[in-house]
């Protein structure tokens, strides 16, 4: 989020933002986004690094060999070497956090935990208003889908979750919000406005329950959307769409950046979670 971002963003009252850092590209994108948001909301930023207990246990097994990425040669894992590597990663994560903290003048803390990664992240982020996660972690086969930590966060009860990925900034010149008239979608709308860059376009995807419901939603939106918001584009879905793939297609057609939605709208939470898995834009899941 750049210095010229809208003032209304400052209305968001995040007091505490947590971000999981494992030095993967997605997690570094998450850290950048979290720092920007923390800067504009004057929130405290907590970086969380988890030393994976599975990794440490594996190193102690007598027969375990590591297949090196660029040589494809197997090599015995040395537990002390692994410990050192993890400490090094933790230091890199901390250094990255401190760089952003210095750049944006943030209050910040850095925690290193040891255990199962999803559980430790969720536990460390319990008090956070916003949990920022990379779309996928370092696991080999989760490049396309969601990482285990994100899955765990969606299933858990984190207040708001921002799922980032490389190649996208936290703030975008266009943001898409799904609106169905529920309180949760109203919160999403407010949050989307706040995340929109000055001069950017707000795409509103209206999800009516029935033909008559659309009119009501439009009336509500005319009151909810601020008059000074110059560029707003409305997209209306046929009543009764509840398929994540269809929704993903519509969102792709809108071609927006950040997707803002809630899993407490009229659509089932599973559909929303599937949608998050299918879409390849950053997602802000609003719960609070």
């Amino acid at each position, binding site marked *: 989020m750049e210095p010229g971002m809208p003032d209304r963003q400052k209305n968001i009252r995040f007091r505490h933002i947590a971000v999981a850092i494992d030095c993967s590209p997605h997690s570094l994108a998450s850290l950048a986004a979290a720092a920007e948001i923390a800067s504009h909301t004057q929130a405290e930023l907590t970086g969380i690094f988890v030393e*994976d*207990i*599975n*990794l440490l*246990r*594996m190193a*102690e*097994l*007598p*027969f*375990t*060999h*590591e*297949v*090196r*990425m660029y040589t*494809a*040669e*197997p090599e015995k*894992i040395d537990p002390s070497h*692994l410990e050192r*590597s*993890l400490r*090094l*990663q933790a230091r890199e994560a901390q250094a990255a956090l401190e760089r952003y903290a210095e750049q944006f003048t943030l209050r910040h803390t850095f925690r290193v935990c040891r255990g*199962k990664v999803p559980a430790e992240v969720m536990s460390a982020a319990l008090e956070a208003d916003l949990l920022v996660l990379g779309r996928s972690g*370092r*696991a*080999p*086969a989760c*490049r*396309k889908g969601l990482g285990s930590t994100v899955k765990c966060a969606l299933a858990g009860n984190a207040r708001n979750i921002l799922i980032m990925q490389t190649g996208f900034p936290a703030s975008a010149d266009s943001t898409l919000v799904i609106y169905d008239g529920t309180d949760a979608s109203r919160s999403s709308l407010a949050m989307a406005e706040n995340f929109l860059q000055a001069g950017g376009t707000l795409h509103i995807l209206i999800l009516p329950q029935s033909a008559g419901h659309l009119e009501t939603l439009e009336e509500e939106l005319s009151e909810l959307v601020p008059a000074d918001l110059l560029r707003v584009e409305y997209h209306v879905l046929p009543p009764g769409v509840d398929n994540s793939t269809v929704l993903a297609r519509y969102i792709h057609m809108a071609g927006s950046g950040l997707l803002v939605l809630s899993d407490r709208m009229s659509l089932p939470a599973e559909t929303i979670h599937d949608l998050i898995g299918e879409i390849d834009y950053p997602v802000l899941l609003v719960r609070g």
Partner: protein
Amino acid sequence: MSLPTPLPPEKLCRTCDPSLFTFSTTAELGEQAGMTSQKRAFDAISFSMGIRHDGFNLFALGPNGTGKQTAVTGFLEGIAPGSPVPPDWCYVNNFEKPRHPKAMQLPAGKASEFARDMEHLVEALFTVLPAAFSSEEYQAQEKNIREKFQEQQTEAIGRLEEDAAKKNIALIRTPAGFAFAPVKNGEVIKPEEFMQLGKEEQVTIEKQIEELKNALQAIMGQIPKWQRETQERIKELNRNIASFAVRPLVSELSATYSSIPETVDYLKALENDIVENFDQFLEKEPDEREYFLGLPPGRLSMKSPSFNRYRVNVIVDNSRTTGAPVIYEDKPACQNLVGDIEHLSQMGTLVTDFTLIKPGALHKANGGYLLVDARRLLLEPLAYEALKKALRTRQIRIESLGQLYSLISTVSLEPEPIPLDIKVILLGERSLYYLLNDYDPDFSELFKVAADFEDEMPADDGNRLAYAGMIGSMVRQDNLHHFSGAAVARIVEYGSRIAGDATKLTAHLQSIFDLVHEADYYAGSSERDTVEAEDVQRAIDAKKLRSSRVQEKIREATLKNIILIDTESEKTGQINGLAVYTIGEQSFGQPGRITARVRLGKGEVVDIEREVEMGGPIHSKGVLILSGFLGARFGIEQPLSLSASLVFEQSYSGVEGDSASSAELYVLLSALSGAPIKQCFAVTGSVNQHGEVQAIGGVNEKIEGFFDLCKARGLDGKHGVLIPASNIDNLMLRSDVVEAVKGGLFSVYPVTHIDEGIELLTGIPAGKPDGNGQYPPDTINGMAMARLREMALRLKKFSAPEENGEAKTMMPAN
């Protein structure tokens, strides 16, 4: 023998009659008429410029200031505009061999156009290529290719992960790679738990993990191959997209320059290079400076060195040239002639590229004419050799001197040579021409034509009018006051005086130009609209006065009798000779006392100047000629039993030249005969063994030098100068000398033989021998003969053996 009579005033200075000029001022004159005297040089110039064969370059030789450059330039300005305009030349990048930039020839005026078009092309590429590569189509295709690779990798590892999961084994990412570990309830088994398992189970797990590890290794081995394939696909895509974007722009340019095959070939190579290096046009981050300067994005990067490769370095632009170029290279250093390869310092390293190739005078004059001052050319290190090499090979090859002599140890360029078709005109003094001709075998091959400029020209009416025309042209050119006919006439007289010959005019036009400017200054300071003869005279006098300090010091010393010069009495063995001193550009005459003493001896004349090595070879030759004369005249019947010594009194700086040899002979005859010489005379002229008086130089300065001294002491009509009769044509004396002659106060005698001179100087006839070779006793020769006879007898007497058989000691006689 009849004695020479004094020259009449009209013989002393040949004046130029202003009535010769029909104009009242030079304002009425048209353009300058040509000087007929330089016809030989003009013919040579015309021949050299007309012949197109190799080696017929020109050397214009003559003293400085004779208008060589003006004449050659004037001639070239006449013929060059009618000649065809030579083509333009430029250097472009050689995409295959960047160290060897390509020279490209384009029709006159096209090179700049081509350079501009290339700049526009690069500007357009900054728009077209980023647009093509940011298009959704490209992004989608690129993403697809990358996604395919990711999918390949993910699927392979995913399948392996699934296989492993079926066996309760997890694939785990480590900081440096991957590893397998047995899991239970989603967690890796603790080591102590594993150890509690049965041996067989442990072996099974280990075996399974070993198999999985091998499978993973096989997959990992595939990844570099997949990456390479992906990169190739992306490169191919990039090439297609870039080519599609670039081709229309390049095709448009190719069509414009389709008539120039070299350009079309270059554009093809350029297109390929842009396609290969398209990414340099995709600006990553906008430059902050562009924002502050209000420039469009990419503008500054376009100026960066990496885009130099697409620039066109125009080294010869003949878009504004009319006809063939005429270039005068004022500083003919090597790099100014053949061009240079400059270097830039970047991060402490010297770098260069073809845009830093700088043209030389040979490039600019190619197809035309190049004028170079020979002396300056020879003073510049390696410049003459470079010029010769270019003329010999008929091509201009630019070589960095620093590189050639390993002064710069960095990568440099070897630009393609450019064919040379040129006429070179060297301007220089004669001595340079003859030196080069003698010592440089290449010179006569390359400069086959010599235009020899005259130092002087006949003072005929045609050249006098040409002088007037030249002054008129100069007045117009430099915006001076116009000159009256009388003023021009005075300048013409000055021209004769500089030439040192009343029948000639100097061709050293620079002196005339200087006088014209000085006279203009005096006319201006007198608030006159036209320059009159008195302004010219004032300028001449002022010029003389400015450089007369030394002359005045010497005269002052003479008047105070510190330097002894007698101009009144009569003395035996003493005469006033005349010498010329040259200081800087000014010369002046000054009398000097020459004395002679004789004694018994063996017939030799001792030149004291030579004995002390203060006499030059020509002077010594003159003295030896005197011995020849004396021997022939007096030594036929009897031995010359004398020894004579000659000296220039109070001479402290050496003597050269034979112009005093007649004076030396007169003083010897005086010493021999005992006849005193009238000191109111001064003498100049050389003499031969027959006693004939021969011409000398600087006659005007010598006469004026003696005149000035006599005038200062008071003229009474006795004073005069004896000059060789053959110098009469050289007389261009000052008006005050002429006036004194007119008033009978001063005389100039033309002498043809030594016998005439001695009679004038002593008032005693020289005397002619009778049938027995005897001279009348009351003549100079008779008295000399008698004295010599007496000396011979005395010598004989002294040399005769005494009664005891010993010779007497020889004693000096006089």
